[in-house]
């Protein structure tokens, strides 16, 4: 039985060692104190590596990971969120929010019509709240359309 803790611990050890290695490469300037910019990261990295090693040697009980389909839902949500991050500026608030909120809503409860309604409702409701009640500077529609 492969334990998640072991895998994660191993990743931690490798990342921590890489972090310590890159700490040794940090440039020091002529204006330096007795400790310098390298020591603290090296200490932190070493402790992290030690913790990772403990996780490899003494793993906890296996967490109950979701089934594959749920991982699919999570992946879709992450992709949707990244797309949202990039769409917010060029496309304005209203359209991306309606689409992405519908997708997220559908991932939580797989019913198409309520999901779309909640997406549209959230998009308009939050826009009114942010723009007109709280006075944040949001652009509602794509820049191209507004000109």
């Amino acid at each position, binding site marked *: 039985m492969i334990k998640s*803790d072991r895998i*994660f611990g191993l990743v931690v050890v490798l990342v921590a060692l890489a972090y310590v290695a890159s700490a040794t490469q*940090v*440039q*020091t*300037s002529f*204006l*330096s*104190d*007795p*400790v310098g*910019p390298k020591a*603290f*990261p090296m200490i*932190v*990295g070493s*402790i*992290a590596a*030690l*913790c*990772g090693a403990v*996780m490899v040697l003494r793993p*906890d009980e296996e*967490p109950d*990971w*979701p089934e594959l389909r*749920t991982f699919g*839902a*999570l992946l879709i*949500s*992450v992709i949707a969120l*990244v797309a*949202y*991050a990039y769409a*917010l*500026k060029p496309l304005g*608030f209203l359209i991306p*929010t309606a689409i*992405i909120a*519908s997708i*997220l*809503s*559908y*991932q*939580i*409860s*797989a019913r198409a019509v*309520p*999901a779309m309604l*909640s*997406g549209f*409702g*959230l*998009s308009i409701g*939050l826009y009114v709240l*942010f723009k007109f009640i*709280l006075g*944040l*500077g*949001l652009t509602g529609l794509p820049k191209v359309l507004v000109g």
Partner: protein
Amino acid sequence: MADLFANLSLGFGIAFSPFTLMLAVIGCFIGTIIGALPGLGPSNGVAILIPISFTLGLDATASLVLMTSVYYGAMYGGRISSILLNIPGDEPALMTTLDGYPMAKNGRAGDALVISGVASFVGAFLATIGLMLLAPLLSRVAYSFGPAEYFALYLLAFSTLGGIASNNQAKAALASCIGLAIATIGLDNNSGMPRFTGGNLHLMDGVDFLVAIVGLFAIAEVFFFIENHGKGSALGVKLEKVTVPVRDLLDSKWTMLRASVVGFIAGVLPGAGASLGSFLAYMSEKAISGKKGGFGTGVAKGVAAPEAGNNAAAGGALVPMLTLGVPGSGTTAVLLALLMTLNITPGPTLFSDRPDVVWGLIASLLIANIVLLLMNVPMVKIFVRILQVPPWILMPGVTMVSFVGIYSLTGSYFDLVLMIGFGILGFLCRKMDIPTVPIIMGILLGSAMENKLRDAMVLSGGEWTYLFSSKISTGLLIAAVLGFIAPMFLRRFITKPQRVSD
């Protein structure tokens, strides 16, 4: 004493201005809703509101009043979802579910809500008075703290957080290291050289702690809801007419008082204070009432004790946060982030340089408490209705608010993507039982901790024994080691109560 009253009148002068009063009331209301909603607790609720309140352009006192009212409100509101849904909003609220949920299932949901509301008030009110008395004293002691003492104090905070609040020392220490390592990204304060940026210009200023907090707390929560498909948040118990159970309240008056004192003292400890507060309050009352007390089956005292302890600890946790800059819980860590965003440096100088901020805050906490009691006992039915918002509307809403908040604060895609990354990290960590609060604390305190260490070494000319040169720092370092190691042995004797299942 005369000082205290002069300070309080200064505070009330600020707090009683119509605008501040309005902010306190709004904050309490929003806070109670946030606390009551399943999946939102004090820390992630306050986290998603900070960027928004910052963009509104409120001044330091006003935003502090607003956010601490939200904080207190969420502590009150958290009990609603603990009792009715068996979903604690955060770690300390877990203890309230132990008796609150059974009581609600026995058809006494209304009584449980009123008892816990009054207990919250008693705990929070006494803790605010404790804060008023203790904080100025502690701030005077804190004046004598040099870099060595501060370094030891930070270490104590991390080790108790890891030792007490988690089930596995290695994982808690790892979480602190992840946070500290993230804090080292960016330009080095002393030499001005970039560290760990990989040549990325966005990383030169370091990782914004608000991005990390919103990602780890709010976005990760959204992923959890996607995993469960929003199950388990349906209201299973009926709430009939709400009356005031006078008998139960009178019976548990000593329980509330004792629990408040225990909670407050635990809350003052830097690091793990707040979750320890409700735990100790519940366990000590359980021991006092013995077997025939019936703790765990839904008794009034079992609801009153953790709720008074929890709220007292929340107030107590403000003491080290304001006087030393070391938070005592996840939510106070978020409040520390708020102070840092507002360019207020917590610490002993805060009390002498910005008395308006400190005393305005304390006065508005007192007001917020009374507002919350009035809001939470007669109006509890309204909040129960809000709690029935289905997660497929709520969680996308939380996501959008987080995005808009961070986007209007930093205006960069990079930070939004980084926030999603922190969301994934938070999801993985919670799955693997790695606590996320130490990560936040590491990011918040990392550069201060490193600077204090380096300052100490400059003072001593590189002599490491300087860290043990004063009684205070030696004591703190010993406490840090004990706080980390002792729970490993104690865990065999004391098991933390787990959530009750249906």
